[in-house]
């Protein structure tokens, strides 16, 4: 037992060290070339990288532990074996912070869409949206494969194709299946098996009341708020309790998403001079957005940073079992690069500057770091 613990500790130390090396390589690359168009932006970024190198690996990387365990896992991937507890926790965090919900939904959507040949892509459109509509139109919160085909089927494709896709995606997001056998179907005079897809019973209990509502005049309707958050929460809750048995693709996808959130949170805000045109651009909302240095989006810099960060996140979430499954081959690194494009959907380019929407999860992680650096500076002063 002690041996395993020591091995884990060694691995963690090694991962933190790799992360530090990644940061150092990135810093060298940033110093080599300046692609910033705002005066002083590169200097700010260099300073931030120096701080990251100095503070993040300290005390066995306790800052990283805090950021991943307390912020990211707590909000999106709670450590529990109880599905309903995990679901309620994630749903609450998404409902209370719609901006968090937005980023995680966008990232998961992109994650599913990033593998075009996979089941997630249904005629290149997000199938989750269709399932939501299926549920909205359904009675008693369940959809059947037949009604799903009637709603979304392509007349040029056989029913089976869509049903198989639905089965895969239902399994992917954690819906449960109930089969009903009709011995003698009136229309075709043959045996017919209908599959009902619905939420697990413990989740249905949570949804009743908030998503199934009774109107003043007594009608029971599915609430307008029934949206992607419910599926995202189910998807994440489902995987968080099954973390020890997840496959490679899912582990890589989830770690990728969380690693991107982590990296983005550590980036500094660039100070803009008052006459900078971006401040007058109608697309820029100064209260909710901040300009971040664009260098870190450079392919070469990200390539150095993303891999060690993914491995760090993987270790925190699923220990060595997850870390071992992170893809390290060049071809798979490309997949990571592709996922990085997702981050552009949650950030904005405004007049050539990359703007981060200041959503709560970024602010939370950034604050953890801020506290330490301020404390570190005062230590030095003392």
């Amino acid at each position, binding site marked *: 037992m002690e041996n395993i613990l020591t091995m884990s500790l060694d691995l963690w130390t090694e991962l933190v060290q790799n992360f530090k090396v990644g940061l150092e390589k990135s810093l060298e690359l940033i110093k080599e070339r300046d692609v910033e168009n705002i005066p002083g932006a590169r200097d700010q970024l260099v300073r931030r990288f120096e701080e990251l190198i100095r503070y993040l690996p300290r005390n066995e990387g306790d800052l990283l532990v805090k950021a991943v365990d307390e912020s990211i896992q707590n909000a999106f991937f709670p450590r529990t074996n109880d599905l309903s507890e995990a679901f309620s926790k994630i749903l609450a965090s998404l409902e209370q912070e719609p901006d968090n919900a937005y980023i995680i939904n966008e990232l998961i959507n992109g994650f599913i869409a990033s593998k075009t040949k996979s089941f997630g892509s249904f*005629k290149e*459109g997000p199938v989750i949206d269709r399932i939501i509509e299926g549920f909205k139109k359904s009675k008693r919160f369940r959809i059947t494969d037949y009604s799903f085909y009637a709603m979304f089927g*392509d*007349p040029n494709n056989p029913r089976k194709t869509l049903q198989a896709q639905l089965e895969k995606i239902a399994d992917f997001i954690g819906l449960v299946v109930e089969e009903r056998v009709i011995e003698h179907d009136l229309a075709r005079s043959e045996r017919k098996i209908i599959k009902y897809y619905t939420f697990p019973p413990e989740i249905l209990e949570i949804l009743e009341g908030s998503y199934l509502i009774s109107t003043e*005049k007594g009608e*029971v309707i599915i609430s307008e708020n029934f949206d992607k958050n419910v599926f995202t929460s189910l998807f994440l809750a489902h995987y968080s309790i099954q973390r020890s048995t997840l496959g490679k693709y899912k582990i890589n996808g989830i770690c990728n998403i969380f690693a991107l959130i982590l990296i983005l949170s550590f980036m500094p805000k660039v100070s803009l001079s008052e006459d900078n045109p971006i401040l007058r651009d*109608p697309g820029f909302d100064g209260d909710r957005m901040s300009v971040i240095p664009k260098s870190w989006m450079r392919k070469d810099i990200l390539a150095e940073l993303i891999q060690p960060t993914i491995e760090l996140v993987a270790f925190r979430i699923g220990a060595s079992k997850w870390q071992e499954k992170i893809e390290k081959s060049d*071809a798979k690194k490309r997949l990571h690069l592709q996922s990085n494009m997702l981050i552009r959907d949650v950030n904005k380019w*405004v007049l050539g500057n990359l703007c981060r929407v200041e959503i709560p999860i970024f602010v939370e992680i950034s604050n953890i770091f801020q506290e330490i650096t301020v404390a570190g500076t005062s230590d030095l002063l003392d």
Partner: protein
Amino acid sequence: MARERWEDVVAYYRTYLSLVQSLIKESKTMIIKLEPSQIMEEGVLQELLDKASKRKVSKVKAIAEFNAFFLKEIFHHIFNYIEECKEEFEPMDLKDYIVDFLEEADQTFDIFLTMVEEDKNQQHSSLLFRLFIILEKLLLPQGNSLEEIYNLLIQSAPEWYNAQRYVLQPTTFFREEIGEMVIPGLSPKIYQIINHITSLFNLDPNFLDSDENPDFVIPTIMISDVFEPYIDNIASAEEEAVKRICERMELKVIMNTFIGPTSRFLELAEPHRYISTQTDADGKTRWIPQLSNETLILLYLSRVSFRRGFLSKELINWIAMNFAFIIYNAILHAFMSDDNIFYNLFLDLKTEEKILPYLMKLLCFENYLRLDRTKIRDSPTYRKEIFTFLGKKIEAIDKLTYFLVDEIKKELNDK
């Protein structure tokens, strides 16, 4: 495909509405005649329904079948409502509520019937036209030049950009031959590629001497960089079509290796600060890209709007469906209360599939979108697209719907 006249389509559009409206009226008369206590007896209502929907067994007439079916549907809503609320309300109140619901549904059908002006030359006064004009300005403005349209789109982009990009992204992709001149909608992959092009231009462009103007140095990016993140030939079709994709955004392929802006792009983007200039030591003008997310997407949309005669069948259906849906929903929200038990009758696929395809066709005529209406799919086989549309609806479209609702309410208050 036959090119139907305005009057023909109006007649088709109104047929279903008037049929269902007469059934609503009939149901209302039946309920009014009942004593409140009879409302609570399912047998009485069932008897009324059976009597009203009685038809000869020997001869099946489509219209009689249709009436019987929809009357049953209307009564189904009434039965459900009574069942759910009989403990809560007095019979008198229940009856009043049902009559109110029916009255409101009747009036909404009236609005749908009268919002389309039958005389093609008298469109300017119709509700449909007024709502269309508001939407058109925001999503697909008309103009004499690409520049004029682009400027109009950028003006409304701060508030409506999400809706603007949404009308470019059809959800369905049926097999369709896309000719050289035809402009298709943006698939999720193309959208991702355009975003990637924006990022590459902003991050780290190469600079080359312009082949159009020897005094210019223009920014370029490498085609291979655009497609590098894709593996397993995921984007090979797009890679082959890169030239065409670029042309739609006033970009061009240079030496089969780079993507750079055309001089037209420089003219269009400069006034909006999407590109700035700097004079080099050798006196040449260097163009520095500083693109926003909307720069390329709205250029694509401007081109779609400017060359609306050359759109793909998929995109025509998608644009028309967006306009039809937003207008249809705006009227529903404006004239029907949310708790009306017949609301679902309007949102039912059976209703929508009979109204929306005709509304889409009407919106394609010359006074409206000016799209090729023969390409609108009104066959029942494709009715599923309506659901596909609903499934992908985003917040921006709801926001636009409520924006129209406010406009309608303002207009009503002014009257």
